[in-house]
């Protein structure tokens, strides 16, 4: 039996494998414990193979998405900002992280760590308070949305200067391994979108692909990527130093607090889906 898991949350969903190769090129990558080959024909059609076996694949948002079982339980999520004119679309590359992807998504949804892990960038002591925000599961899509999130930030993006302001955030979880955040843009009245799409290498390793869809007429790609990598690189040692890499969904080993509403909802949402991949077995 191929693949390291039989969890339908993974096998029956669309999983990112990174950007499709250039026409007439191919490369290999790791997915659910297997090596898969990505190729793009001369006509531009991308494909993904496990050995000789073609896998169901679709190119969306600049990446190739694969459904390992060939029987997707739902279509891939919508990302309307991707097609909006005037937005910069920047693929910030796929960075390997040695932890369960569930912990990466939970970190992405969290604001309380900003003044500690991202000191002088996304937060600063003593502005540590997390004001109450709203979290709900959207009934039609089944996605999690966190709204009315706000946090004081000294320097919120490559475009902002270092004088500090309250920044508004919205978060969205589309799949167990995909999330988006929306934050106040440099362009007044707009929200920049940052998508994080995790390629599951195995239960304890992911490749984190980050895509920016933002309004910024001044920064170069190198500057935008440098900022994203600065932030992600600060999270990396935290993510890779959880005493257990897989996320516990049961038991009392980990205790949330009030500001952890997103993470409490995310863990409950995973439990209700019967999530097993990347999950720590109950003691």
């Amino acid at each position, binding site marked *: 039996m191929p693949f390291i898991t039989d969890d339908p949350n993974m096998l029956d969903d669309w999983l990112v494998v990174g950007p499709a190769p250039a026409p007439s090129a191919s490369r290999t990558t790791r997915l659910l414990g297997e090596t898969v080959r990505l190729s793009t024909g001369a006509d531009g059609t991308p494909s993904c193979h496990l050995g000789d076996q073609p896998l169901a694949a679709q190119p969306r948002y600049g990446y190739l998405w694969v459904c390992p079982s060939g029987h997707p339980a739902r279509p891939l999520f919508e990302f309307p900002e991707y097609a909006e004119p005037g937005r910069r679309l920047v693929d910030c590359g796929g960075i390997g992280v040695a932890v369960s992807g569930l*912990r990466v998504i*939970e970190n992405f949804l*969290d604001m*309380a*760590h900003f*003044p*500690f*892990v991202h000191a002088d960038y996304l937060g600063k*002591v003593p502005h*540590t*308070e*997390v004001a109450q925000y709203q979290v709900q599961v959207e009934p039609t899509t089944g996605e999690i949305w966190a709204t009315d999130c706000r946090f004081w930030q000294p320097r919120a993006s490559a475009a902002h200067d270092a004088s500090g302001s309250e920044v508004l955030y919205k978060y969205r979880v589309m799949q167990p391994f995909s999330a988006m955040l929306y934050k106040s843009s440099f362009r007044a009245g707009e929200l920049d979108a940052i998508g994080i799409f995790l390629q599951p290498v195995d239960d304890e390793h992911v490749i984190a692909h980050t895509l920016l869809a933002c309004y910024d007429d001044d920064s170069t790609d190198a500057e935008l990527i440098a900022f994203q990598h600065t932030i992600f690189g600060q999270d990396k*040692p*935290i993510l890779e*130093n*959880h*005493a*257990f890499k897989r996320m516990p969904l049961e038991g009392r*080993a*980990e*205790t*949330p*607090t*009030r*500001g952890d509403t997103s993470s409490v909802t995310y863990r409950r949402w995973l439990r209700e889906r019967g999530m097993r991949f990347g999950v720590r077995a109950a003691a």
Partner: protein
Amino acid sequence: MNTPENTVRWHPVARSADLRPGANIVAGFAEGQELALWRAADGTAQAWENRCPHRSVRFTLGQVIDNRLACAYHGWQYEAGSGQCASIPAHPAMQAPRNVCAKTFGTAEAAGMLWVRLSPDALPVPDGLGNAVPAGWHFCRTLTVRVPAAMVRETMARHGLSADEASPAWRGPLDGVETAALVLDAQPLLSFIYLWTSAAPGSAEMKKLHAAARQLRTDIEARPQG
């Protein structure tokens, strides 16, 4: 030193002088248990499970603030002694919940070393710990070897060191230099050997001992495993 199965072992996890009050946090290990070792500003030594109860991030990435340990992830602070959570920066006005507590282990300081036992029971500190290193001896170094502790003891016996009934130390000369060696079972394939000696720091004897220590390590690691 062979201890019967039902005796709780005291593990020499660090040199006392390596933990500075209100300053550093040192990663410690004992029988595969990860520890965060630190000293509160008031001087009391702490040995905690290396895991914040919030999201399980290792305490060793954090920092000591006075008599508290602060986790690197969300800045939660825990009191020395009890391990009780005292502050959650995301909610400055809220009282920290009573049930959030770091897991603490019993400690003892003797013979210049910090000792930890992994049992929750309150047990007296054996007299032998204080006798582990003769008074006035100097610290040579910590040697780490990539083998189980049993293999370390086997090789030290072969080198003419002998386990002392009254204390946990292995005693004898290494290349003619008088030594007391304390063995720590850190991880299944990692052991620490704390070497103490009558030789003075900077002396020719100490230099000889450093060379002998490296040779001992080579010999220990050369032995076939299993």
